[in-house]
């Protein structure tokens, strides 16, 4: 049977965001794949050099609608460190609360999407229903469901009232019940097990070699978590655990994410209960001194790195964003080969691709039919004689 070239995306129901794979399949088996990202490329990094810090924060939130707080916080904490600014404890706690709520909403979203990818729409609906509780909390605290805009250089924009804290705390216990239920469901439901177990397996060595980050890496037993390795906000002061798993497949990634959901809910509870009194922002100077910083932040999808360089003005001279999804693509390309077409959506979904973040500045394109060697390029993992290659229509 000749190889079949199946284009997936950019407009495809499995992908809520645009990306393009050209799957070269032999029957139902994938032998090769070519990635094409950057359908959302906007040029944010260029714009970040032209706008001042106050204006950059809302722009950075819109790098991605799901991990919006991550980008803004990573940038704000980097700039604050360059300025030598110590932000008040209450602001740090509030930032942590929003960050962990965001992680919860992102992981719940992921769990729903993963269930949808295997056609299990009921779980999808249930999870997204529970996610609304998190969204309500976020909306109460910040005024918006998606782009919270809580960050300012030097602190946070708005304070939490006792009523908001009480409401948020009252939403946690039912949510924790549901999280336990999902963990139970994932380890006992037949269709979930047969679609998740052994799919997209990656050993610890491979995860290290291909540079996987976040839950994808932690599911393979790679114990990297920027929250613990390079403590920021309040992660160095409060009790919490890094969740890891050893199975390395989609099942493991699901378990890690549900475990993190639990941890996040505990962090949110702790922070809400131990929220210190005091101001919520420090006076920040308009200009940042000359300096550079590598600001690491554990976004829901993995480690986010902002490289910020300032030059004494109120604008950043250079902002270089390395998103977690970009780091994970190499490992996805590796995982997919040898699996069947039916597993593409779930394996791709398992890294929780946030293409909008990634495409902010990346193009990966494979020269068609080139004899390029395997793994390093991250796009062609196994060689094949040039397949019947149609131009993408």
């Amino acid at each position, binding site marked *: 049977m000749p190889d079949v070239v199946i284009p997936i995306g950019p407009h495809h129901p499995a992908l809520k965001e645009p990306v393009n794979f050209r799957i070269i399949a032999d029957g139902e088996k994938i032998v090769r794949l070519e990635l094409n990202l950057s359908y959302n490329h906007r*040029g944010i990094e260029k714009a970040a050099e032209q706008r001042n810090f106050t204006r950059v924060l809302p722009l950075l939130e819109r790098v991605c609608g799901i991990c919006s707080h991550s980008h803004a916080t990573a940038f704000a904490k980097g700039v604050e460190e360059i300025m030598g600014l110590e932000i008040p404890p209450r602001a740090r706690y509030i930032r942590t609360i929003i960050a962990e709520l965001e992680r919860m909403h992102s992981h719940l979203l992921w769990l729903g999407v993963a269930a949808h990818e295997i056609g299990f729409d009921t779980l999808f609906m249930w999870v997204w229903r529970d996610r609304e509780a998190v969204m309500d909390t976020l909306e109460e605290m910040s005024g918006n469901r998606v782009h919270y805009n809580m960050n300012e250089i030097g602190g946070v924009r708005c304070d939490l009232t006792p009523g908001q804290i009480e409401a948020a705390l009252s939403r946690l216990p039912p949510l924790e019940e549901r999280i336990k239920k999902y963990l139970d469901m994932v380890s006992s439901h037949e269709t979930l097990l047969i679609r998740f177990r052994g799919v997209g397996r990656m050993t610890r060595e491979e995860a290290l070699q291909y*540079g996987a980050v976040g839950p994808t890496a932690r599911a393979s037993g790679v114990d990297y978590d920027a929250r613990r390795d390079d403590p920021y906000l309040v992660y160095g002061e409060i009790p919490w655990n890094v969740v890891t798993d050893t199975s390395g497949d989609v099942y493991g990634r699901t378990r890690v994410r549900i475990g993190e959901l639990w941890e996040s809910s505990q962090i949110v509870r702790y922070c809400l209960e131990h929220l210190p009194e005091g101001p919520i922002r420090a006076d920040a100077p308009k200009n940042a001194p000359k300096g550079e910083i*590598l600001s690491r932040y554990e976004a829901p999808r993995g480690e986010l790195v902002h490289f910020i360089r300032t030059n004494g003005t109120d604008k950043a001279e250079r902002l270089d964003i390395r998103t977690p999804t970009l780091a994970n693509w190499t490992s996805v390309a590796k995982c997919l080969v040898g699996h069947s077409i039916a597993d593409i959506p779930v394996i791709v979904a398992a890294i929780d691709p946030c293409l909008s973040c990634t495409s902010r500045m990346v193009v*990966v*394109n*494979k020269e068609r039919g080139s004899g390029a060697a395997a793994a*390093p*390029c991250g796009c062609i993992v196994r060689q094949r004689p040039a397949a019947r290659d149609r131009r993408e229509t």
Partner: protein
Amino acid sequence: MTGAVTPEMVVEQMKQFGTAARVRNDRFSMQIAPDRLHDAVRTAQALLRFDRLLTISTADTGENFELLYHLIGPHRIILSLSLLLPRGQPSIPTISDLLPPAAIYERQIHDLFGIRFDGHPGLSRLMLNEDWPENEYPLRKDWKPDPGRFYGGIKEGGS
């Protein structure tokens, strides 16, 4: 290669390539010559267990392009190898043979800054967009969109 890697070891082992200066409590930065990059990465990998590439950052300093390779290992020390490339001839050997994830970052930099990575397995003509004109690198400081030029998308009055 037993035992923990200490900051002193990093400074000691990397001395042959340049002076590693402590930037932050866990981050060291050092300036190296572009042609020694490959050796430096290999040394860091082999002797100091820097097994992960955090990212490759790029900056346009005016006359030069600055590349920063941020390496990290299980000891959680970050080593930033910084090197300067002349603007006229920006090219450097790839490190994607040592660290596979570097490939994807190198492509991105090639696309947006026009820096060539020699020996990269798939560094073909990379574009932001299929119709993006040649020799235009949007993240260079001196780049401005040319209003008379077609950058892709939909042409006026047709598909």
